[in-house]
C-alpha cells in the first residue's frame, strides 16, 4: 500500500527532488490520480516563481552571444497531427493550467532530458504524452548533437569560453572575438544607409605595419542601414576590424575614411 506516500510525492516531484528510483513510480501515480495532477500543476507554477528571488542580471555579453547564436540556429517545426496544441492563431489559453489536462504536464523538453529508460511505461502508453515525448526526444537528440558535432564558426564564437566583446569607439555594434575559434563575429548596427552603388566592406587590420588590410566581407545589409552580423575567420597578427564605404563589389584595399573600427581584444 503505497498510495499515501505517493500522494506526498507531488512536492518533491515539482521541485525535481526525487531520486531516479522514485521518479517513475511517482509519475505513474500522478497519471492515475486526478487530485495529485491538479496539485502538481499548481506546484509547478509556484516553483517557477521562486526563481524571482535569485534573479541577477547576466553580463551584457550574454545577450549578444545568445542573439548571435539564434541568428544561425534553425527552429524546430511544431508537432503536428493529433497533439492537442493550440494553433498559432488561437487565443491564448492564459497562464492557468487546465485541470482536465491528461498528462502531468512537465514541459516536454524537460522530460526528454531524462534517459528513456527512466520514463515510466504508463506515460509512454498515454497517446497524447507519447506524441509530446516523441517530439522531445528528437529535439534533444538534435540539440545535443549540435553541440557534439563540429560547430560552425558562428556557434564556436557564440559559446567559446575565451570570447571577448568589444564595442567600437562610436558605440554602434559589437565585436565578439574568440581566439580559440580563430574567428570573429562582427555585429554592425547604426551605420547610415549608402546609395545603391555603394557598399560597406569589413577589413581585418594587422599589428604588423607591412601587412596590408585584409578584406573580410562585404556588408550589403549594413549598406542599407540595417543590422548585419557576420562571422569571419581571423589570421594571426590581426588586432582590429574596420569598415569603409566602397563601390558595390568592394575594393582590393580600403578607401579612407574608416567609418567604424574596433579592436579584437581589450
Amino acid at each position, binding site marked *: 500500500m503505497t498510495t499515501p506516500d505517493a500522494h506526498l510525492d507531488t512536492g518533491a516531484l515539482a521541485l525535481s527532488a526525487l531520486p531516479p528510483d522514485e521518479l517513475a513510480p511517482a509519475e505513474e501515480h500522478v497519471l492515475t490520480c486526478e487530485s495529485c495532477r491538479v496539485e502538481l500543476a499548481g506546484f509547478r507554477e509556484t*516553483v517557477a516563481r521562486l*526563481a524571482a528571488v535569485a534573479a541577477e542580471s547576466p553580463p551584457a555579453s550574454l545577450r549578444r552571444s545568445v542573439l548571435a547564436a539564434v541568428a544561425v540556429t534553425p527552429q524546430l517545426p511544431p508537432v503536428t497531427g493529433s497533439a492537442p496544441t493550440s494553433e498559432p492563431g488561437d487565443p491564448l489559453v492564459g497562464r492557468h493550467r487546465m485541470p482536465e489536462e491528461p498528462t502531468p504536464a512537465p514541459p516536454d523538453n524537460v522530460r526528454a532530458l531524462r534517459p528513456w529508460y527512466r520514463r515510466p511505461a504508463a506515460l509512454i502508453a498515454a497517446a497524447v504524452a507519447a506524441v509530446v515525448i516523441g517530439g522531445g526526444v528528437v529535439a534533444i537528440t538534435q540539440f545535443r548533437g549540435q553541440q557534439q558535432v563540429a560547430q560552425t564558426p558562428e556557434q564556436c564564437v557564440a559559446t567559446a569560453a575565451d570570447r571577448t566583446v568589444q564595442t567600437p569607439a562610436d558605440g554602434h555594434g559589437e565585436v565578439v572575438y574568440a581566439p580559440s575559434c580563430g574567428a570573429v563575429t562582427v555585429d554592425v548596427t547604426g551605420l547610415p544607409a549608402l546609395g545603391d552603388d555603394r557598399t560597406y566592406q569589413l577589413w581585418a587590420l594587422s599589428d604588423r605595419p607591412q601587412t596590408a588590410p585584409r578584406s573580410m566581407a562585404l556588408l550589403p545589409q549594413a549598406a542599407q542601414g540595417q543590422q548585419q552580423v557576420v562571422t569571419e575567420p581571423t589570421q594571426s597578427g590581426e588586432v582590429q576590424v574596420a569598415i569603409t564605404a566602397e563601390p558595390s563589389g568592394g575594393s582590393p584595399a580600403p578607401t579612407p575614411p574608416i567609418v567604424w573600427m574596433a579592436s579584437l581584444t581589450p
Partner: protein
Amino acid sequence: MPPPDPPRANRPLSAVPDPAATPEELLRLTALGREDAFERLYDSFSARVFGLARRIVRDPSHAEEIAQEVFLEIWRRASRFDPAKGSATSWIMTLTHARAVDRVRSAQAATDREVKVAQSSTERDVDSVVEAVESAFERRAVQRCLGTLTELQRESITLAYFSGYTYREVAELLTAPLPTIKTRLRDGLIRLRDCLGVAS
C-alpha cells in the same frame, strides 16, 4: 523572375510586439521566427534564468553557458510550447532548473557547493539584482511568502530548488527523517502556492 514567395524576412507585419505582450504571446511570435519577440523574451527572463542557474551551479561562467543553452533551446523549441500545459514562465524556469541541476548532479561540483552558502544567500539577492520594478515586486512577494513558511519548510524547499538536492540529501543535511522532508516540501509548497495566489 523569382516565384512570388511570401517575403518572410521582411514581412510588413513585423511590428514590434505589443509592449504588454505576455510571455506566452512572445513565445508564440518567437515560434514564427520573430527575433524581436525572442529578444523581448530574453530581456524579461535573462535575470531569472541566469540568476537561477548561478544560484544552483555557483560558477558564473557555467551559469552563463547554461543560460545560453536555455535560451537557444527556447528559440528552437518555441513551437512546442503548449499554453494549455502551463505558463511560459513555468516552461522556461523548469527547463533552466533541469539544465542547472543536471550540471551539478553530473559534475563532481559538490566540492564548492556548501550548504552554508546556499542557506545564507538570501541576503545577497538584495544588492545583486535586477532593475525592473516589476521583478522587484515579484521578488518581494516571493520573499514575503517564503517568510510565512516554517523554518524546516523553507530550508527544505530552498535546498531542493536552489541547490538541486534530492529530498534524501535534504533530509541528510537537515538530519530529519525522510517522510518528514517529503511532507514539508509538499505542505510548504501548498502554503507558498496559496500565499502567491497561484490557481490550483
